[in-house]
């Protein structure tokens, strides 16, 4: 297959190189120029502002994960009902965060929080992040539910299991990989988000992407290479885990 299209192979290689080269340069330079290869990592992880940003990102990510996994799992289970009043409306609501420009979601939320007198900070960011991650979690779990054999649950019911027992012993274990990958996705989306956080985080609740953004406006430092690479590796780890989970 490959031999017959040397031009296309070369072209694909070139495009992938274009996509990966900057990330490669970033990770290589994060290890260079210091007395030890981990020098800049050490420096970055002892910068109090970066550490605070990291803590904020993790706190927001965890909060978002809990809320959106809970809401998303429930919604996906509810959506198994084929027909109900308002189903089309709810489906459109689910898709809305995926098609709305992020900037609009961010500023709409900012206006609403100010209107409600909610202090801009970690909590307001969690509320905003949950709003756009719920959709992703729901759609992933829904996809898994659609691929599930309904006979298994019917068999459990026929054998005398109560609805709750059927759910906890059959449905939930089968669904667990999807729930976990939904949760991981929610965390990653929240951890990575820039625009919505930009609008809804108040003063002093910078997340890591926000911190990197504001540092970048003043130039490039080796510590930034280190912290960015650390984030890169973290995301790669999460992606590979999700890929693994989906294979099972």
């Amino acid at each position, binding site marked *: *297959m490959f031999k017959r299209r040397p031009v296309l192979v070369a072209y694909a290689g070139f495009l992938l190189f274009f*996509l990966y080269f900057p990330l490669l340069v970033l990770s290589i330079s994060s290890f260079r120029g210091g007395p030890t290869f981990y020098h800049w990592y050490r420096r970055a992880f002892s910068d109090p502002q970066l550490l605070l940003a990291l803590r904020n990102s993790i706190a927001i990510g965890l909060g978002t994960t809990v809320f959106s996994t809970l809401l998303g799992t429930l919604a996906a289970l509810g959506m198994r009902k084929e027909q109900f009043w308002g189903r089309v409306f709810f489906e459109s*609501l689910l898709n809305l965060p995926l*098609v709305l420009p*992020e900037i609009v979601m961010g500023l709409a*939320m900012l206006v609403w929080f100010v209107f409600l007198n909610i202090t801009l900070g970690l909590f307001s960011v969690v509320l905003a992040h949950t*709003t756009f991650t719920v959709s992703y979690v729901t759609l992933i779990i829904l996809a898994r539910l659609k691929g599930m054999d309904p006979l298994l649950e019917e068999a459990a019911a026929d054998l005398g299991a109560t609805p709750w027992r059927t759910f906890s012993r059959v449905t939930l274990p089968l669904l667990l990989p999807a729930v976990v990958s939904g949760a991981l*996705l929610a965390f990653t989306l929240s951890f*990575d988000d820039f625009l919505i956080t930009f609008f809804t985080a108040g003063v002093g609740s910078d997340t890591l992407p926000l911190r990197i953004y504001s540092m970048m406006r003043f130039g*490039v430092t080796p510590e930034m290479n280190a912290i960015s690479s650390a984030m890169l590796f973290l995301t790669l780890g999460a992606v590979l885990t999700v890929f693994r989970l989906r294979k099972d």
Partner: protein
Amino acid sequence: MNQKMSRRQPPLLILPSLAWFIVFLIIPIGIVILYSVRHKGAYGQVDWSLNLDNYKRAFEPIYLMIVARSLWLAAYTTAICLALSYPLAYFMARSSEGAKKALLALVIIPFWTNFVIRVYSLKLVLGEAGTINSVLLKLHLISAPLQMVDNSFGVSIGMVYNYLPFMVLPMYVALDKFDFTLMDAAYDLGATKTQTIIRVLLPLSLPGIVTGSLFVFIPAFGEFVIPDLLGGSQSMYVGTLITETFLKSRDWPFGSALSSFLVLFAMAAFMFVLSRQAADDENLRRAENTAPAPLPDTKVALHV
């Protein structure tokens, strides 16, 4: 009758998310639209008398210039991404199953990495003391570093770099379902290579082209981070304008009017694709091909 009613009753399990979406999505957007027909008072407070001045103001020449610049940016980003992605998506679709999976993962992984970090890494490569300049200087191909960031060149590269996966994926989804024996049939019936591409391949992969273009065009139109970080300070885009109106000049009514346009624009494009998809589904089914994935599903797939 009663039984039928309860059968159509919405499941209780969706109520929490339904409530969440109403409180944190519908109402906020409603408020933005409400703000857009208000007026900014003398002390920066919002004056609650109804008027359409903000919308009129958006059509003043300075703002129209900004809109035109953003449209141009979005248009050429879309065009370049389209031209670059099509051969790659075609190659992916014609590869063996194993190679398909690997290539797909390779395209998606950069998309997963943080957006700000991707822009930052690009700056490391393109910057004055960046990789490209130091290599060229060492090889004595140039005598002074090339200026590749803080200008429109930097913005273009940044936009294409960032939006490329958005285009490749829907295009691949469409081409993967394409029945390539149709092309052989066209050859057998005497069509030339160009004719086959124009009359068979392109029309049947149009849904992918449209979806991908929209994925790129809509966010590119409202983009503000890439011009901000790679474009220097000289040019203003719609995204920049909205951000500054909200956060710097604090003119929320005007900012709301501008964002309402963006919402309208995104919705119209979304509706257009959905209606097209319905028509295309029908056509494709007739051609005994499976229907392309709907728009939001493709977006989720990008993340999974």
